[in-house]
């Protein structure tokens, strides 16, 4: 192993301070730190430090995404064959490989474009490359329809990273969740490729007469739902790549909560908020969407994926403990409300989270203000005692 370390040190020589390629050091450092935790020691403050760092945190989220991703790849193939092949399914590996053939290029494009921009900004600004995009880069293809053109994906990624993140100052400074911003951009820039009945099943546009639309899409048009709750829960339904299987998402949620990387407060309050809102609409029951069972609301569409992986993004969510609960409740409420009242755009979770991203700092403001007021009151009381 010493050989490898020596080799890397040798390669890094021209990137050191005062050397020829000094400016490009962030790029080479980013690659090196994937092999080794650097030999940096503490200079200030506590002399010992926790093993956790941003890289470990982000990789944990990627691990949590893996079950949903693997199922998404399989489902991409499954939907293709079940809808275009008269319901005749080829062997498992063929289904999986078809999905992989569709999804892998999306992941590659997302990482290549996003990381390229991140590296360029790091070199330009002279700071180290932050690991945030490791997660965003995987999230973006998972919230897109499987037939979404790659060049549009590339533009959406570029928009999200440049406008959504770097324009605000980079990792940790963004107001909106970058992955959701990519989806929102794609949705409004290329609406015909982001909704309808041709894009959720791969190659559906080549054949007429395929009803490949999502459950929420058909509900909004007043059609019957052709899937059972169990099918929705397991995820054998059309939808964005990673969002369909609530089971796989729950495994991810378990990983996030067990490791403490994702906030259980946001997840739980989000589900509670959505369930309560759906129950309320069930009670009113004027339209098909209002009557859509509250359990089904939780397992259909992107709600589960959004609440587990998007709402819990610590940068764009509320940052205080109390704030997180309010933030989650409101996401749940708005997700269902938008679904029910906006037939033009049945999937509400994306807009609900983006809306709450803008409100999160306000929620935190009021929570922190409670602490400030308490301190002011204490001071006033102390002054009163003194003068008395």
């Amino acid at each position, binding site marked *: *192993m010493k050989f490898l*370390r020596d080799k890397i040190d040798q390669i890094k020589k021209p990137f050191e301070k005062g050397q020829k390629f000094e400016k490009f050091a962030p790029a080479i*450092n980013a690659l090196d*730190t*994937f*092999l*080794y*935790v*650097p*030999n*940096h*020691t*503490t200079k*200030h*403050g*506590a*002399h*010992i*430090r*926790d*093993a*956790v*760092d*941003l*890289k*470990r*945190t982000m*990789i*944990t989220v990627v*691990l949590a995404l893996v079950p949903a991703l693997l199922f998404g790849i399989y489902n991409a193939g499954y939907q293709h064959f079940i809808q275009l092949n008269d319901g005749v399914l080829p062997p498992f590996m063929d289904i999986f490989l078809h999905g992989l053939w569709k999804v892998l290029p999306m992941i590659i494009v997302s990482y290549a474009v996003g990381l390229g921009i991140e590296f360029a900004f790091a070199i330009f600004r002279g700071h*180290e490359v*932050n*690991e*945030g995009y490791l997660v965003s880069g995987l999230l973006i293809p998972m919230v897109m329809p499987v037939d979404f053109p790659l060049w549009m994906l590339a533009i959406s990624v570029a928009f999200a990273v440049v406008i959504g993140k770097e324009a605000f100052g*980079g*990792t*940790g*400074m963004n107001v909106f969740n970058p992955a959701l911003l990519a989806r929102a951009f794609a949705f409004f820039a290329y609406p015909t490729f982001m909704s309808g009945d041709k894009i959720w099943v791969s190659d559906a546009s080549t054949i007429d007469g395929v009803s490949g639309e999502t459950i929420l899409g058909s509900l909004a048009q007043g059609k019957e739902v052709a899937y059972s709750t169990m099918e929705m829960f397991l995820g054998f339904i059309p939808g964005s790549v990673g969002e369909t299987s609530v089971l796989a998402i729950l495994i991810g949620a378990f990983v996030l909560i*067990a*490791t*403490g*990387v994702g*906030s259980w407060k946001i997840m739980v309050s989000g589900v509670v908020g959505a369930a309560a809102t759906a129950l309320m609409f069930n009670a009113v029951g004027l339209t098909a969407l209002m009557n859509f069972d509250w359990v089904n609301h939780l397992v259909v569409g992107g709600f589960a994926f959004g609440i587990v992986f998007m709402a819990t993004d*610590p*940068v764009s*969510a509320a*940052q*205080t*403990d109390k704030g*997180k609960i309010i933030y989650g409740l409101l996401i749940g409420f708005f997700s269902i409300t938008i679904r029910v009242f906006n037939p033009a755009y049945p999937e509400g979770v994306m807009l609900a989270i983006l809306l709450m991203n803008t409100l999160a700092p306000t929620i*935190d403001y009021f929570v*922190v203000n409670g*602490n*400030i007021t308490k*301190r*002011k009151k*204490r*001071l006033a009381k*102390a*002054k009163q005692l003194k003068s008395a």
Partner: protein
Amino acid sequence: MSKDIRIKKGLDLKLKGEAAHKIADTTRSKVYAVKPSDFHGVNPKMVVKEGDNVKAGEVIFYSKADEKVKFVAPVSGKIQEIKRGEKRVILEILIAADSQDVFVEHSKKNPNDLSTEEVKAHLLASGCWPFINQRPYDVIANSADTPKAIFISAHATAPLAADVEFVLANKLEAFQVGIDALTKLTSGKVHLSVKGKGKSIFSDVKGVSLHQVYGPHPAGNVGVQIAKISPINAGERVWTVTPQDVAIIGELFLTGKFNATRTVALAGSEVKDAQYYNVISGAAVSDLVAGKIEGDNVRVISGDVLTGAKVNMDGNLGFYSNTVTVIPEGNVYRMFGWMPFASPSVHSASRTGLSWLMPGKKYAPNTNLNGEERALVVTGEMEAVMPLDIFPMQLLKACLASDIDKMESLGIYEVAPEDFALIDYTNTSKLEAQQIIREALDLMIKEVG
């Protein structure tokens, strides 16, 4: 009325190399040092020159800002060198020690018979004043103030910190006299906090409001106790003294001598047979650790691993240190060290490692940063180790932005750098929280005073 202090938030780091309950003497060092950097914010004005002979307890410099605050030699001997750094800042005053100390003799006094002003004057003249620290700002107390209360924490919870009850078991008389002196200085009470479990040797100390402390580190931090007993409001002053320093103050009144000898825990994973030693402040590091440490790639810390100061092997101990910790340096690469659930030998308070499944395991951490500094992304982790009623991340951000109004409203007066030591340790972004708080407090001293 006493009030128990119970906290839940915090973290007990279990480290290898705890000092056994044995005390030995060390050989007398040839050279002792007084380092102005131990006294934050003090700009020293020298009284002695190189080559002067001094007695133990004789004034060698005073604070330019407050001439009454004097700093004295810990031993008798000859001023060997006044080491200066950039811009002629005084780094160290080195004293070549005599073989036996000759003390400056003050008269023996009973603090109960003295007025506040007399106690104050005695402490200032004898060089004991620097033992008294002030909150807010965590600096030496201003002798013109009357604090609303004085706080003493006799329960050390920091990793490998010296056991206060063991160290002071034979010095209870001096401790009581020290308390008697301190009670003269405040208009309020002297609060003494002791360990919650078991009977404390301090439970019979008179003239104090006694508090029992329960919970993980930083329960023993005096700042936490202040916040629970009587939080600091804007404009208020409280003072803090560490228990060993209370005993030194007491000894001054009992014997008329400033005796800078203290019992220090020499601990850490790199120490052979870790135990306690009697050492005079400012002793040479090498005399204390020679032959007692393993390996040579080590860091010697004057203080505990969270808040101490790094000292060189050929350097000297600090003025206040009751603990000296020796841990391995971490200047090594660790392959794939960032992988979740890998490297079980490195502790993590987060659950992305396996430490939480092995709560009893003791660790031998090195000084590696275990990552690189990154933007603030993760939320909630600072709050988990912050028992004070403040929002740590919001306060740190206000400090980084030098937003004085916000710092004030978010509670900057209630904190000291040591209260952020665990945030240094646990935070994912490798943010230097203690340094940020120290710089912010310095800004407050300058702008608000």
